[in-house]
């Protein structure tokens, strides 16, 4: 029984200048039949599944479709083709510091974020102190969020998502935040979560981190799935070779 199943998922983005035109321009283009939306496949035919306790590392160069895939997994986007099946609660941390409100205090933001991740008020009341302590922001509790440094912001976001034990945890470039001390702390926390049986997905550009922590690897390149499997070191080696320019990859034809 897999906890997360991604089946043949393709995601098409709409791009082009259709966002920037006003009503007048929209109508004239429609009338002339010149209204067009460019289509762009951010992900094409991605298939994999995860079991309970897996730690998946998604690797790939910029624009490989990693973040888009995460959006589909967390339910923010609907896949254009294929489907995503998930069991249990999911906590997604995409682009950490965004979604916070600069005018609210740290405390208010913590509750708001907790609410967004689907926790109950009771749960947040219990966990609040623990979260703040982990993020090391005790003396900043009642300060407006915008006064925090960017490292502090990410620390808070990480702490909220991690201390709550979701079934599936998605981390997009999360572990590369904070200073050295916090990074060690957060890695330890991540391992604790993995060993407690949660399924995690990690996107990282730090191959070292991926090699060390992940049990499965998904390699994406320009939206296409190059490799998926539990041969972590092997896949990472081949990825490294490609980065070094020693290996050419062929994109599977559609």
């Amino acid at each position, binding site marked *: 029984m897999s906890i997360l199943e991604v089946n043949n998922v393709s995601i098409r983005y709409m791009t082009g200048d259709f966002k920037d035109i006003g009503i007048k321009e*929209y109508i004239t283009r429609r009338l002339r039949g010149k209204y067009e939306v460019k289509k762009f496949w951010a992900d094409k035919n991605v298939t994999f599944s995860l079991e309970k306790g897996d730690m998946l590392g998604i690797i790939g160069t910029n624009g490989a479709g990693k973040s888009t895939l995460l959006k589909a997994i*967390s339910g*923010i986007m609907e896949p254009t083709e294929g489907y995503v099946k998930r069991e249990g609660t999911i906590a997604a941390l995409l682009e950490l510091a965004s979604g916070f*409100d600069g*005018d*609210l205090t740290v405390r208010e933001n913590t509750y*708001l974020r907790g*609410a967004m991740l689907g926790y109950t008020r009771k749960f947040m009341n219990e966990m609040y102190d623990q979260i703040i302590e982990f993020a090391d922001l005790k003396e900043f509790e009642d300060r407006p969020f915008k006064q925090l440094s960017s490292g502090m912001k990410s620390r808070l976001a990480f702490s909220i998502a991690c201390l709550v034990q979701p079934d599936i945890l998605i981390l997009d470039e999360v572990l590369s935040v904070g200073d050295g001390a916090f990074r060690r702390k957060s890695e330890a926390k991540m391992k604790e979560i993995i060993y407690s049986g949660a399924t995690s997905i990690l996107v990282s550009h730090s191959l070292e981190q991926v090699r060390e922590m992940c049990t499965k690897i998904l390699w994406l390149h320009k939206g296409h799935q190059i490799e998926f499997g539990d041969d972590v070191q092997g896949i990472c080696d081949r990825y490294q070779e490609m980065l070094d320019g020693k290996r050419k990859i062929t994109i599977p034809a559609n």
Partner: protein
Amino acid sequence: MIEKLKRHQFLFEELVKRDFMKKYKRTVLGMAWSVLSPLMMLLVMRLVFTQFFGRGMDHYTTYLFCGNLIFSCFNESTSQGMTSLMGNASIFTKVNVPKYLFLLSKNVQTLINFGLTLCVFFVFCLLDHITFTWKFILLLYPVLCLVLFNIGVGMILSALFVFFRDVQYLWTIFTQLLMYMSAIFYTVDRYSPLMQKMFYLNPVYAFISYFRKIVIYGTIPTPWHHGLMLLYVALALGIGCLIYKKYNTRFLYYV
């Protein structure tokens, strides 16, 4: 829908709280501002228009207040609702939350403002020697209709606003025009019966005149009047929900 709302109750409360804090942060009067603005409007209208439109008319102040009360609620709710989706783009592109929560949260805020203004309204009624009857209970009906209507229009506007920013300016102009067509400070008596009926094409006027019939004239509006209001609500909500349903997953391409 109800189940979903229950699941997101905590988030909803937090959003409402956030909207409140942001709106009244660093203001001396806080929520009083929201009551003050319709009152100022009322004062000016009262001073300026009594000589023109209020001659030989009883309870002109109450008449004015009815119009201002409803219209300012409609105006505030829709124009703030319009930006609710766009303003929270950074949230719904990162977290999977029902998008109508942002709009509803804004509407809770305007509803509370409306409630406060309504209290002031009743005080004014007392000062204006209006007799309170049991029929005042019926006022719940237009209030409920107005709230639902506002939500419906808010849904339509907030969705359109994501696609076309022009909507903001168009709506400002439109509400201005609508205000003059809502018979807020004048009466429609002088128009032909046909024209008087035409006024009911304006939903806001239908709400306002319901209020006036109960408060000033002490009569219960016709079933036809009730039905018309219901129709407007159903239309606005129906179209709004349809748009949200259809574009739910597509909003994020446009922000």
